[in-house]
């Protein structure tokens, strides 16, 4: 697995989310369109992987990503929406 940096992973999640949303809107009126379903699944999987990788490396994106350990890690910085520039 290549070592994607934080921004790239976050961007991938955002792009996947958008594609999933747009595809979902299409599927709402074409519930049996196999190509659209395929498209949805492809990006849903990509999003899941990117999300998992992000959480493993950089911590939770939402508090539901809490890792179940003995410390509440949601409040560990930086916040998901903070850019590298803001941290410096």
């Amino acid at each position: 697995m290549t070592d994607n940096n934080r921004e790239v992973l976050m961007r991938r999640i955002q792009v996947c989310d958008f594609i999933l949303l747009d595809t979902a809107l299409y599927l709402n009126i074409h519930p049996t369109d196999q190509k659209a379903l395929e498209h949805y699944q492809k990006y849903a999987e990509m999003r899941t992987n990117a999300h998992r990788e992000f959480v493993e490396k950089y911590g939770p994106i939402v508090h539901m990503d809490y890792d179940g350990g003995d410390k509440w890690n949601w409040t560990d910085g930086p916040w998901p929406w903070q850019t590298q520039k803001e941290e410096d």
Partner: protein
Amino acid sequence: MENKKNDMYNMANRYRQNGWRRVDIQADFNAEPEPEPEMEMEIPRLDIPRHAEMPINITTAEIPMKNIMQAEIPMESFMQAEIPTENPEDNACGFCITPAMSYVPMQMWNSTYEPEIGFTRGTIFPELDLPWVGEGACDDDR
């Protein structure tokens, strides 16, 4: 057309001064087009049901498209919308025939943009990526 509208206005004003009587108009979409009436003729009194009592087939769904295209919306229906009658109930319907219809073709699955392109364009569907007035106000990649 403009003259005709003015004439109709004048006629309507005379009615208003002399006591407006309600004129109901029903578009007969299957009728042959009538010859151009002379301007001085009275607004014809058509004995037809009012909007609420109109048969269902006056709604948009069942009027054949061919007849829609041929039908001219009678001026009187605009007049009726503009000029109040003594009985408020008479104006409840406003326009008694449909002023406009739209048709939106069903979207089909064709190609989609590459992820990054779709993200910046705001849609993953090229056929929905239409030009907008004011585009360029934000600095995107295109």
